[in-house]
């Protein structure tokens, strides 16, 4: 049900009380009628003359005052009832604050074009100067030392040195992925302002840094036998 505003309820209540008191005092109620005099005059004249008055609203409202109450009239002589109040926002999308918008062309497309161009140029130039690695053909009988996973999985490989493979390779990344997916449903704070989200920001940053440190250690600080080394002492054992 639509909620009827407080002030309308009060007004209705006042009208009802007034009507009740009027009814007990006098049935005619000519003096206290809220209908302006000139309308009353006009309706009386119309009734007397039998001429239809163009001003229908006046005629309808005036009717109870002139003759007896019409059938179905409410207290106070109202011939209408308030069924419901529909607030404007509920059926119309009222934009209280107009959104400041710009045309996608050229404002956004030009930025995207430049970004794409810059990206292509970067990849092109990088590829010009740095070659992709191609080692010896795959050989099942010769395990390189150390053998490392691609860099984005090196955090997992680093975890392997600390935990059982099932924990390091399945449980931790699985939990991480699930936690990531459910983040919007777990984070009940509706604000997106950085000052309101200090806890979430810190939590995410800690995990991100933790992961980055693992990847860096595994990439650059692990040498033959996957033992700890210093890259400036023993060189880098890392291929992209």
């Amino acid at each position, binding site marked *: 049900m639509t909620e009827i505003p407080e002030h309308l309820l009060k007004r209705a209540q006042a009208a009802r009380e007034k009507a009740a008191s009027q009814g007990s005092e006098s049935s005619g109620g000519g003096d206290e009628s809220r209908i302006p005099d000139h309308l009353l005059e006009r309706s009386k004249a119309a009734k007397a003359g039998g001429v239809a008055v163009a001003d229908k609203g006046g005629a309808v409202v005036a009717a109870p005052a002139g003759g007896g109450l019409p059938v179905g009239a409410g207290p106070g002589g109202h011939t209408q009832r308030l069924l419901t109040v529909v607030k404007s926002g509920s059926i119309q999308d009222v934009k209280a604050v107009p*959104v*400041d*918008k*710009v*045309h*996608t*062309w050229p*404002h*956004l497309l030009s*930025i*995207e074009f430049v*970004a*794409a161009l810059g*990206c292509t140029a970067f*990849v092109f130039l*990088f*590829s*010009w100067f*740095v*070659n*992709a*690695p*191609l*080692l010896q*053909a*795959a*050989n*099942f009988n010769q*395990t*390189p030392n150390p*053998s490392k*996973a*691609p*860099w*984005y*999985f090196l955090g*997992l490989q680093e975890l*392997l040195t600390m935990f059982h*493979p*099932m924990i390091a*390779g*399945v449980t931790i990344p699985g939990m991480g*992925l699930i936690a*990531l*997916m459910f*983040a*919007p*449903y777990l*984070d009940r*704070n*509706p*604000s*997106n*302002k*950085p000052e309101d*989200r200090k806890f*979430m*920001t810190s939590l995410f940053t800690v995990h991100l840094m933790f992961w980055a440190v693992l990847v860096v250690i595994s990439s650059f600080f692990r040498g033959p036998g996957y033992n700890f080394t210093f890259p400036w002492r023993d060189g880098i054992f890392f*291929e*992209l």
Partner: protein
Amino acid sequence: MASTIEEKPRVTLKERAAKLGESLQGSQVWNSIFRPGSIFRKGYTDSPRNRSYVIMNSVLYHLHPVKVKRHAVKVSYTLCLGGLSFFLFILLTITGIFLMFFYRPTAADAWQDIQSLQTSVTFGYMVRNMHRWAAHLMVLSVFLHMARVFYHGAYKAPREFNWVVGVILLTLTLLLSFTGYLLPWDQLALWAVTVGTNMMGYSPVIGEQVRFVLLGGVEIGAETLLRWYVLHVLLFPFVTVIFLAIHFWRVRKDGGISGPL
């Protein structure tokens, strides 16, 4: 006797070119190709109406709304990371198709094909480099895109589900990169994938089965190469495109990008 030579104004090459261009732009063929609002159409003017038409009447651009929030075009807000991830995906598709012409996913040929691609195919080495570096860059940009979205709290209502789609896309990006890692069939590829897939074997209950299906055997071999090739060039890109479509569609349905903070 003075003879007067009737001087016709000489038609310069520039004028001729302009006239030719005019008649080309006025032709039916041209008008049928470039829909109203195209900047290549005759008489294009920079009006609000044409600015809207550019977006509405283009199959490529109509991914965008006609208008966007002013703060949404701020580079400092998005850093273009989502768009760049998508652009790198396109770049990888194009370079990947090029590479497919010169590559056979068999244990006997794969490494040799890459070798000859680098040495005897025009631009072969260049395109291979671009494919590899763009792939690493895409993993990085998808990661950064996720971090950016998190720090802006952009995963909050009504964008919760789009975040979930995004996490799926991150996983797909990693899978795409990882399956591609094996294809050169060199020592780096073989042993990196060995390390990676050994971890999979430790999944509870179905670990061994999952590993068997993915490797096409108990150990990495010729079967694995074919399997990962198909996953890399067909299955994962196919699934990724579907999720990309959902991701982009939801960006618009959820009211454009988030913010301002």
